[in-house]
């Protein structure tokens, strides 16, 4: 069916979720009370702000990931032709991995991979 299928899928997803939510909206009468809308924190009112700056630990992995994922994208076209390119491909990838691994080791040594 080709690329048109993507449109079908997106519409299907929206329709499915939309209809499901709408049905549940129609089926019941919402009730309200004071506590209902409070964020759940084991039944205790939450203290302090929730939307705060978070520890850098989480983001560091995103950064490292970014670097590695870009390398991974390079690998896809290489992988397709690797078999036909033969030894050149292997040598190339060894060099590529060597550099990548050095970067990895550097990150490891710097403690970027240790959770803080």
């Amino acid at each position, binding site marked *: 069916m080709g690329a048109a299928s993507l449109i079908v899928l997106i519409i299907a997803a929206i329709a499915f979720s939309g209809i499901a939510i709408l049905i549940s909206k129609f089926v019941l009468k919402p009730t309200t009370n004071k506590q209902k809308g409070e964020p759940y*924190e084991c039944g*205790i009112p939450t203290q302090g702000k929730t939307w*705060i*700056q*978070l520890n850098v630990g989480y983001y560091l992995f995103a950064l490292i990931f970014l670097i590695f994922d870009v390398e991974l994208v390079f690998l896809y076209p290489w992988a397709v032709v690797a078999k036909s390119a033969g030894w050149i491909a292997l040598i190339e990838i060894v060099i590529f991995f060597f550099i990548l691994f050095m970067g990895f080791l550097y990150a490891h040594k710097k403690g970027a991979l240790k*959770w*803080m």
Partner: protein
Amino acid sequence: MYRETQIIAGSSHPSFAEVGQPGEFIINVGPQHPATHGVLHLVITLSGETIKKVEPHLGYIHRSIEKMCESLSYRQFIYVTSRMDYLSAHINNHACAMCVEKGLQVEIPPRAQVIRVLMDELTRIASHELWWGAMAMDLGAFTPFFHAFRERETINDIMEETCGARLTMNYMVPGGVMQDIHPDFQKRVKEFIQLYKRKVHEYDEMVTGNIIFQNRMKNVGVLSAEDAISYGCTGPTGRGSGVSCDIRKLYPYEIYSTLEFDEVLETGGDSFARYMVRIREMNQSIRIIEQLIDNIPEGEVLTKTKAVLKLPKGEFYTRVETARGELGVYIVSEGGTNPFRIKFRSPGFSNLSVLDHIARGSKIGDLVAMMGTLDLVIPDIDR
């Protein structure tokens, strides 16, 4: 007869009014949290995933058992203590009955002594089984919980047959035990021992030997021996830190001095050591039961006591080893039919107090492992 009391707990905590550094936030774990197994409320200060401070807030199910006991007679108050540490109800009852007997200065018949010890050890196994399952569930493995319940239910069935209840038995009374054991008791206990021996290797396969589990437990919540003593940690929590604190060995009561069993000690002090202490303790309990099950002496199970018990003026203290640690029962008598004051030194209360000390600097996931291995039973803490 009933009136609802309005208790608004934890509405404002002065020490937490101001929030500390940026990136730190305060999270409430409990009273309705899957990992607290009851209504423990922990206020945790977090920085990212790292715990800066843990502060327990208690009292959600505080029934003031100590006050209640002051208005109950020496026969009656024992039933309340089953509701303290409900997982080792027999041992609580045992401690209270022993304390009253100490005051009355009665000897209990040898048959009752053996039955009491047998029941205690069965309770200990049942309690550890539940702890094992619940702790594995806290760490995210659901299956062991059900496997542990299979063995635990067997014990509960045995209890039900003899004592008539599965959890809060009120079987031990001053002077002995309430009823003689059921005729099938010995057979059923032997069957249970067989079942346990057949299944015990599964504990190792499912949890103990599992690499994920070991990594979750090792070097988590390390408690040194000095701190364990200073914080009053007893039971498997203290013994995991290498503190010899088994009351059954140190201050033997009933027939424990004649029995062959080892005090289980681990030196790691981390969660894994506490875990291993309990696992090995179950084997020791099985060993005690095996020694006794064929050697229950014949005879009476209940010494004749007066219908209304009166303790002489004085103070009486007994210490027993429950599944969680040292339980102390302290009765102050003024010579009347009711205790003047009763204090229960519950093991969970002291074990909880160490949580803040060992949890600082670890992750949220570790907190669950620590709480699991401290084996907190909230009614025991709240009493």
